[in-house]
């Protein structure tokens, strides 16, 4: 133990002799790990939030396809679906998008039943009558509106239509409701001029979750022009959107890994003449190959472990305490109403250990292998260069 500590002490002195170079390596190395870990933490957290909350979403959403594209669905399809065994409530939905040219933002509009209960996430009250609406925080901010104000929107006939804001979704539900405006179903049907008897899609409740795929298959057989989207498919979408292979992960991961590879390659392709000479001198004064490898291993560990811990520390602070300000512009894209991110600190230890394995081991290998090559060479020829 004492021997190892002494080797570590010597390794630290050796690193201190090349202070600037080694601090630069630690800084770049920890930056690379912080970038990689930030993406892992951010995407994992979003995935966990999505999967945990969406688990209570509709069991099946039935869309009608016309010419391979989503089309309005006859509301009387509900009668056929209700007849299927194991099916509970079948509800036709009216919803759609609205582009506000004044504020250049897109809103999502959803029609709800007038008997909708008061929800905890709504400040004020839910819509209960025509001419009323409940809006998300993003919509309220864009329109500079408050509860009690009138919201002016242009309907599909091109005529201005107003609604009174009776409620506002709380900021804690921003991830779901930031761009949402709720109306009564009849009101929204008139606003979009949706023909009577048609709906945007139909949600289906299935009593036994194990029967969802069977019910979806039956709906497809009953109405061949429909596409049932099951809750598992919805959850699967969010699992794939935020997984390791997603576009964002791949892009930043690839560039960070390339940067890291350049760093490791630089180390692996050879050690400096000064370092070779040092190994030669140590061999000449009686250090054996094992000691030199232990020394180089300790030097590599000092740099990689320090950089890894610093990287993870900064990534956590960046994502969960600061709200990922460096990643939000990448995530945001052209989304004008992007909700402020208040992420739940979900950390997947498996991902962190994998990241550690993928970054620490190659760096250690690239430090030890060239040193081992020098250590097994004759000290005199090393010192002569």
């Amino acid at each position, binding site marked *: 133990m004492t021997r190892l*500590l002494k080797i570590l002490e010597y390794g630290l002195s050796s690193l201190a002799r090349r202070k600037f170079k080694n601090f630069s390596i630690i800084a770049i190395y920890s930056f690379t790990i912080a970038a990689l870990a930030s993406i892992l933490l951010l995407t994992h957290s979003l995935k966990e939030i999505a999967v945990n909350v969406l*688990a209570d979403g*509709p069991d099946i959403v039935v869309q009608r396809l016309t010419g*391979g594209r989503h089309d309005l669905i006859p509301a009387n399809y509900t009668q056929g679906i209700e007849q299927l065994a194991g099916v509970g409530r079948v509800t036709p939905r009216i919803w759609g*998008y609205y582009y506000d040219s004044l504020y250049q933002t897109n809103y999502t509009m959803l029609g709800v039943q007038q008997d909708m209960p008061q929800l905890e996430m709504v400040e004020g009250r839910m819509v209960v009558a025509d001419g009323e609406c409940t809006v998300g925080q993003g919509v309220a901010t864009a329109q500079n509106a408050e509860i009690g104000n009138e919201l002016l929107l242009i309907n599909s006939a091109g005529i201005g239509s107003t609604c009174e804001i009776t409620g506002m979704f709380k900021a804690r539900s921003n991830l779901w409701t930031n761009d949402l405006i709720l109306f009564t179903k009849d009101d929204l049907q008139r606003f979009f001029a949706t023909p009577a008897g048609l709906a945007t899609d139909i949600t289906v409740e299935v009593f036994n979750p194990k029967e969802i795929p069977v019910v979806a298959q039956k709906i497809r057989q009953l109405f061949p022009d429909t596409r049932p989207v099951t809750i*598992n498919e919805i959850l699967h979408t969010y699992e794939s959107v935020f997984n390791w292979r997603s576009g964002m992960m791949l892009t930043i991961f690839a560039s960070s890994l390339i940067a890291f590879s350049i760093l490791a390659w630089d180390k692996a392709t050879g050690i400096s003449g000064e370092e070779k000479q040092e190994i030669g001198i140590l061999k000449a004064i009686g250090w054996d190959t094992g000691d030199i490898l232990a020394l180089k291993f300790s030097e590599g560990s000092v740099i990689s472990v320090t950089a890894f811990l610093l990287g993870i520390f900064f990534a956590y602070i960046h994502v969960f305490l600061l709200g990922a300000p460096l990643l939000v512009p990448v995530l945001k894209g052209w989304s004008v109403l992007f909700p402020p991110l208040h992420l739940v600190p979900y950390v997947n230890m498996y991902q962190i250990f994998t990241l550690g394995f993928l970054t620490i081991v190659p760096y250690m290998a690239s430090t030890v292998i060239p040193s081992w090559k020098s250590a097994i060479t004759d000290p005199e020829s090393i010192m002569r260069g």
Partner: protein
Amino acid sequence: MIRTRFFLSCIALLLISLALLSLHSRHGKQVWITQELTPNRELVAHLALTDLALWTEARYTRHPALADFFAPFQDFPASFEHFPAGSIIAPHLPAVSTTLRVRRITDGSPQ
């Protein structure tokens, strides 16, 4: 051994900080689960929401779960993506629906 002590102290400090962050993570999750998960699930259940309101620029980025399979890159094959979010969202392939069924054999014949 001054350098070793200094280095080990720094590592210990970093480990303690990470342990504190881990407590922060546990606490944050607990608070979210007890205070926000249920009302958010209630919201999703009552309004039948299917997607996160993250990307509002296009139909298929606002509702990736309900988008047509071919919605991204819909202008022509291999066209450049219109919206940055389209590069972030990975194409999702249908989940594997294969299942293995193991049944008990009674009276010498499989049920």
